């Protein structure tokens, strides 16, 4: 295995692994859980919940995510050519890589990955409707005007109302019952925290590294191709 050779330098280890993982990253396999047996799935997930959350906090998971993120960002750079990459493109790439890292075991990760495909087909429909669609990448930017008016009826109890709101925030969890939303939110929050940590570390690395030493700065330069000249 090529990755076993680069053990000494952890930073360049990430960069080398990024190049290796690009060859393997082509196909994404979704592990479809049984959608029909919702009740049994929830009891099972209650047991497995801790096993699912803890991996998000491990360093190995963060390194996997960072290396894949670098790959995706490289593609964003290449595809945008002369124009500077927009923040939204980076955001969508980061979310996509996060969903891939989740290996498709959770609803939100599958929803992110399938929404990517939906957006390409539904672009014309989105312009015609003009309202918020299921695309989670856009629903964060636009204010959900239509659905809030519906939800602020006095008939709905507070918990159910908040479940709806939370279901909108977590991708793929609209119209899901409370236990599903709770469980997805638990995993999603852990994943988001890891995403924030990884992206912050990457940003620090690219900007010259206040937290890292100069050695890692050189490692990052080696990744990008040309290090900035030190005169």
């Amino acid at each position, binding site marked *: 295995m090529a990755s076993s050779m680069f053990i000494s330098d952890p930073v360049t280890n990430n960069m080398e692994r990024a190049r290796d993982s690009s060859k393997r990253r082509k196909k994404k396999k979704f592990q479809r859980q049984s959608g029909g047996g919702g009740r049994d799935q929830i009891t099972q997930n209650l047991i497995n919940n801790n096993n699912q959350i803890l991996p998000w906090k491990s360093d190995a998971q963060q390194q996997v995510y960072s290396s894949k993120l670098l790959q995706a960002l490289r593609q964003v750079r290449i595809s945008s050519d002369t124009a500077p990459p927009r923040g939204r*493109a*980076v955001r969508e790439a980061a979310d996509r890589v996060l969903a891939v890292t989740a290996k498709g075991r959770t609803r939100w990760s599958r929803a992110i990955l399938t929404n990517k495909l939906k957006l390409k087909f539904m672009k014309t429909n989105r312009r015609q409707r003009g309202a918020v669609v299921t695309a989670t990448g856009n629903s964060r930017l636009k204010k959900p005007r239509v659905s809030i008016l519906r939800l602020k009826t006095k008939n709905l109890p507070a918990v159910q109302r908040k*479940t709806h709101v939370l279901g909108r925030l977590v991708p793929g969890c609209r119209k899901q019952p409370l236990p599903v939303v709770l469980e997805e939110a638990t995993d999603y*929050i852990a994943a988001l925290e890891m995403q924030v940590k990884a992206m912050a570390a990457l940003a620090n690395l690219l900007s010259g590294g206040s937290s890292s030493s100069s050695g890692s700065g050189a490692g990052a330069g080696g990744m990008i191709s040309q290090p900035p000249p030190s005169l």
Partner: protein
Amino acid sequence: MSNRRPASSTPRITDEQIIELVSKLQQLLPELRNRRSNKASASKVLQETCNYVRSLHKEVDDLSDRLSQLLSTIDNDSPQASIIRSLINQ
């Protein structure tokens, strides 16, 4: 039966399961972690969860903007860096 019941009243989801899920979620939230899990109601936990998810989303947005700026800066530097390097090496 042509009409189905709303999804939230699915049978066999016990209250205990929901309570356990809520408490697990509460452990993740920075706001409510200090308090004992008995004291936070489900409504409050949900509210804090929404707020926390929104703040995390915003943080990711800010980081993406920062990363995109950094990437464009590096793009501008690399052709110049290669030119300067060739000049220096001669």
